[in-house]
């Protein structure tokens, strides 16, 4: 479990992270979503004590990260797969990690196997690694101490489709086993398929959070009727916000059941009723972040 409370980080006059509050629960994968420069990485660095927050707190498993006696045993962290000494071999980096965390050296081979790095690859220096290989190595490093929390910043960058699939399965198993996963991404599709909960950040502030299903529901419902005028009147009368969609359809900001009941109650014969077109997370995401960008300019 990760708890972030009113976390704020200012650099001079610039506020990178502004009163960010959210919780990542155990047994769930929490997706931390935002465009580049939204404050994801700063928030994650503050979580693990690499950045001193200006105000607010971040706790992992009920404690400040710095107060964990042996963080590697409880929290696996991957903030930047490229942040490794280029002159070390992959195997050496894992060996150092097992030493400092205090797990047997046999764990190195287990981990290499787990992230599908071959013996030959493990013997190469990291400067000769592709980004995908670095991500695998980084995930292995995070898993060294068999932690119960994973904090991963853009872990899918550079992975091929099979690699993304592999990571998704790994994180799913980890969460199903009672672990907490927080992963950030600016790639929506990745997060959409894996996350249970979502936290969307834009310009340093949280613009939306909730379960994935809730957030998807907010995209609304597309409804079409034989008599569009009657439908619009009925939906408006029910207090729903509606938008015209094409010539005869209406997009209502409500879930399917609500819209269906309203139409039924008004005696309007509905010809089509479904989740709104392009109701994927992307639309919400772009909408939400565009909004904060405008607010940022206005402020």
């Amino acid at each position, binding site marked *: 479990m990760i708890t972030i409370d009113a976390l704020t980080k200012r650099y001079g006059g610039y506020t990178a992270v502004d009163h960010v509050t959210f919780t990542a*629960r155990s047994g769930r994968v929490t997706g931390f979503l935002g465009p580049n420069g939204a404050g994801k990485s700063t928030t994650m660095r503050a979580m693990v004590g690499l950045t001193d927050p200006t105000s607010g707190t971040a706790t992992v498993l009920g404690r400040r990260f710095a107060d964990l006696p042996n963080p590697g045993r409880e929290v696996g962290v991957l903030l930047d797969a490229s*942040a490794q000494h280029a*002159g070390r071999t992959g195997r050496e980096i894992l060996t*150092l990690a097992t030493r*400092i965390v205090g797990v047997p050296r046999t764990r190195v081979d287990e981990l290499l196997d787990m992230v599908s790095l071959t013996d030959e690859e493990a013997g190469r220096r990291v400067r000769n690694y592709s980004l995908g290989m670095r991500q695998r190595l980084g995930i292995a490093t995070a898993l060294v101490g068999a932690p119960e929390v994973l904090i991963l910043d853009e872990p899918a960058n550079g992975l091929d489709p099979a690699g993304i699939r592999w990571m998704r399965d790994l994180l799913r198993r980890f969460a199903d086993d*009672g672990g907490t996963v927080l992963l950030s991404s600016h790639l929506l599709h990745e997060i959409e398929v894996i996350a249970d909960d979502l936290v969307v950040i834009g310009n340093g502030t949280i613009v939306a*959070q909730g379960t994935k299903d809730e957030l998807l529901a907010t995209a609304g419902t597309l409804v079409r009727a034989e008599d569009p005028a009657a439908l619009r009147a009925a939906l408006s009368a029910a207090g729903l916000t509606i938008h015209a969609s094409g010539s005869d359809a209406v997009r209502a900001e409500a879930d399917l059941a609500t819209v269906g009941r309203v139409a039924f109650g008004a005696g309007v014969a509905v010809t089509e009723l479904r989740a709104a077109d392009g109701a994927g997370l992307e639309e919400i995401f772009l909408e939400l972040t565009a*909004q904060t960008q405008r607010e940022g300019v206005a402020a």
Partner: protein
Amino acid sequence: MSIDTTTPPAPPAPATVGRRARPEPAAIPTSRILAVELRKMFDTRSGFWLMASIGILSVVATGATIIFAAREDLTFESFATAIGIPMNVVLPMLAVLAVTSEWSQRSGLTTFTFVPDRRRVITAKAVVTLAIGIAGMVLALGVGAVGNLVGTAIAGVDPVWNINPQEFAQIVLANEITMLIGFTLGVLLRSSAGGIVGYFVFSFVLPGVSGALASTQQWWADNAAWFDLNTATFPLFDSEMTGEAWAQLGVTSLVWLAIPLTVGLAMLMRSEVK
């Protein structure tokens, strides 16, 4: 910033999946941090060759002394002096890189998440660096001793052992001070290139400036040792360290090492690791 109206209230907490009850892990013992930091000094190609160069350069310097020194100059002191020149470069580089590689190579992101208390990591680096300095100097002067035996045997003269244990210790101390300079620069600048350039400025440019000043200013010539760490360190290579010389070494070390190191550490503790 904006008051955000789009944020829905936080969802009710879903039933948490039973967390595996775990015993609290034991704290990381200092011995483990020391062992890992020691290993990190050797486990890259550059680190390995820097370490190896302690041995290689002592052999080269010793060989050069045997070949080029006049027969009557073949004393342990001349070997030690010849070896001291490359050591004066290699050992501080090691000290600089021990600290700066965490930033220049960005491995600090991993290091400081496994051990969030940066003081423990930096202290371990200092201990390991100084230990390597002592071991390196003992090895280097050991090579010099062998060179002295071989060189004098070739030349057909009796070996001269004109360095007593106290002088030996003073030479090691002088090298430890140069390593601390490198370490301090590393802590202050957190950049490999900056640290190395900084050390060369300290070690090769400042003495020239101080010497030029001393040749025109009698006052500086008499009192430089109270201000200039290079000048204050120099008597360590002589047989006699007077009480005044120790006092000068103490004062200059405080100014050149203790204060910058304290400032650098304070900055390092609060700095962002990116």
